[in-house]
């Protein structure tokens, strides 16, 4: 019943994406963090992997691969190992595409999925979070009111990745506030639509290379065909479970990055004539980090496995996400600690990972498997 063996394909995906993350994303991470910009050639190269188009059906120009949350988690972990900002940037179009793949109407699939099969990166995104202290996924304040044949959207969103460069975005809004998750719908909103304002870029503590924006909707009118899934609507709870799994998997990658960096440093750095890794004070920290990573990964894989089996993955995805939010912060902090004074300076990436990891407990809904 229990099998932790990756399939041959998953193993190859891990190797291929892992090599890309190690050799190309990682060296670009620090300059991107400093400049706030991710080099377009790197994004183009990532696009060639088919991270977005792979699971789009062939008749809509995609690779036609089966959607798998486990495979998605493997990809996300490797990309997160390279760099969290760059990973979210290259995966962001999934936020728009996958809900349409899974829950869209045939017309929506035909209209919106083809753009992801081209040779060039097609920016797209989704708006989930809201700038409120009492933000609650099951009680969204952005509302969609039925009006004639269509809907009118009002409210504000935040942490919307790539909003300024995406032609269309998916905006989640409450159509029936009394129904919780079930009362949430997704609407395809053109950025150029009347009533849509994309703010200045947000200034965040971490994820500095990732462009995120606030989005304001003021009497933004969309047609009935903008509602993902038509009258059937979407399973918002499931989409958010998928998102949590992806986000948690990215976090495992960040944890692994901090661990490997600290371990290698501790083997090199000498104090009192021996590598500090041979001192128990350091060795115990490293061992605990390794345990946390495997524990977190297993939680993520279990949640992904549940989703792949058709379950809602609600409980498991929350456990995974919350565990990762805590342990990513702890591990990246450990990374800084093992490097001592060197960990605090920007020559080493550990301080950047610590800043990035803080986001795991603060933000949600900006990644998907």
């Amino acid at each position: 019943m229990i099998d932790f063996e990756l399939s041959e394909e998953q193993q190859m995906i891990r190797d291929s994406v892992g090599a890309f993350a190690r050799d190309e994303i990682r060296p670009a991470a620090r300059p991107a963090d400093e400049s706030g910009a991710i080099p377009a050639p790197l994004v183009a190269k990532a696009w060639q992997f088919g991270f977005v188009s792979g699971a789009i059906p062939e008749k809509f120009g995609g690779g036609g691969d089966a959607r798998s949350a486990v495979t998605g988690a493997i990809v996300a972990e490797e990309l997160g190992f390279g760099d969290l900002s760059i990973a979210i940037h290259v995966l962001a179009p999934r936020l728009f595409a996958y809900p349409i793949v899974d829950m869209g109407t045939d017309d929506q699939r035909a209209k919106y999925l083809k753009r992801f099969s081209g040779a060039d990166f097609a920016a797209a995104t989704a708006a989930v979070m809201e700038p409120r202290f009492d933000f609650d996924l099951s009680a969204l304040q952005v509302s969609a009111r039925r009006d004639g044949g269509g809907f009118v959207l009002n409210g504000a969103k935040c942490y919307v990745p790539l909003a300024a460069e995406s032609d269309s975005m998916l905006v989640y809004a409450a159509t029936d506030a009394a129904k919780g998750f079930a009362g949430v719908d997704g609407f395809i909103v053109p950025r150029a639509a009347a009533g849509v304002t994309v703010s200045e870029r947000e200034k965040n503590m971490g994820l500095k290379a990732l462009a995120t924006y606030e989005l304001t909707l003021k009497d933004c009118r969309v047609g009935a065909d903008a509602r993902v899934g038509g009258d059937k609507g979407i399973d918002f709870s499931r989409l958010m479970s998928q998102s949590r799994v992806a986000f948690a998997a990215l976090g495992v990658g960040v944890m692994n990055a901090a661990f490997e960096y600290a371990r290698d440093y501790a083997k090199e750095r000498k104090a009192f004539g021996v590598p500090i890794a041979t001192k128990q004070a350091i060795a115990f920290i490293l061992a605990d980090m390794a345990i946390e990573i495997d524990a977190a990964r297993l939680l993520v894989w279990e949640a992904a496995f549940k989703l792949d089996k058709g379950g809602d993955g609600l409980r498991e995805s929350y456990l995974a996400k919350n565990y990762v939010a805590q342990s990513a912060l702890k591990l990246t902090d450990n990374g800084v600690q093992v490097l001592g004074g060197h960990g605090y300076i920007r020559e080493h990436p550990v301080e950047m990972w610590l800043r990035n990891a803080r986001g795991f407990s603060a933000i949600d809904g900006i990644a998907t498997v």
Partner: protein
Amino acid sequence: MKILVPIKRVPDPATTIRVLPDGTGIATDNVKWVINPFCEIAIEEALRIKEKQTGEVILVTVGQSTWQEQLRTGLAMGADRAILVKTDAALDSLAIAKILAKIAGDEKPDLIILGKQAIDDDANQVGQMVAEMLGWPQATFASKIEIAADKISVMREVDGGLETIAFKIPAVITADLRLNEPRYASLPGIMKARKKELKEIAADSLGVDLAPKLKVKTLAAPPKRQGGRKVASAQEMVSLLHTEAKVI
């Protein structure tokens, strides 16, 4: 154009290699196996030629059944089909070349592109031997390949510069480092690789003499590097080079 690309499985260049205590080989536990980097370049070049024209890229390797993994990776990069010539024996370059020449005789490719050497034993022999056995022109250490109809011109990296040679197909080309930058296997490419043909042939069914002409007597790790030392002046340096290192 039909292109045959022989590849070899080698330890990941990033792996720390440990020689077995008895010197008979290297410790293979915890070793990650990959396609030889020069072979990857050969695959990439074959794929680019195919994409520019039309044709077929056929991978071939000689080894154990686990070597399938590397063939699958090559198929995931975009090769059309693969042949595994199966043997558990450790063959030398000559035996490999004979097998490849036999496969080339059956497949009749227009071009054979392979890595200039494998990063494990650095023999740099197979490409040359195959060309000789087939009686085909060869261009080794290629850093640029241009094809016009059946004429090929190859820029080679030679001592002190570059040399361009031209010849007609069929031919053998060995790839140097600067020929191209190999692609990563994409997600859809990987998912499609399983559906592609991977044929297994037993090496001893080919009717080729595989008896080794070469025997590895012993393997040893390179000697540990000694730390350097500082000298006070240029005079002292020159004097030490003369009296101690005896190089001048």
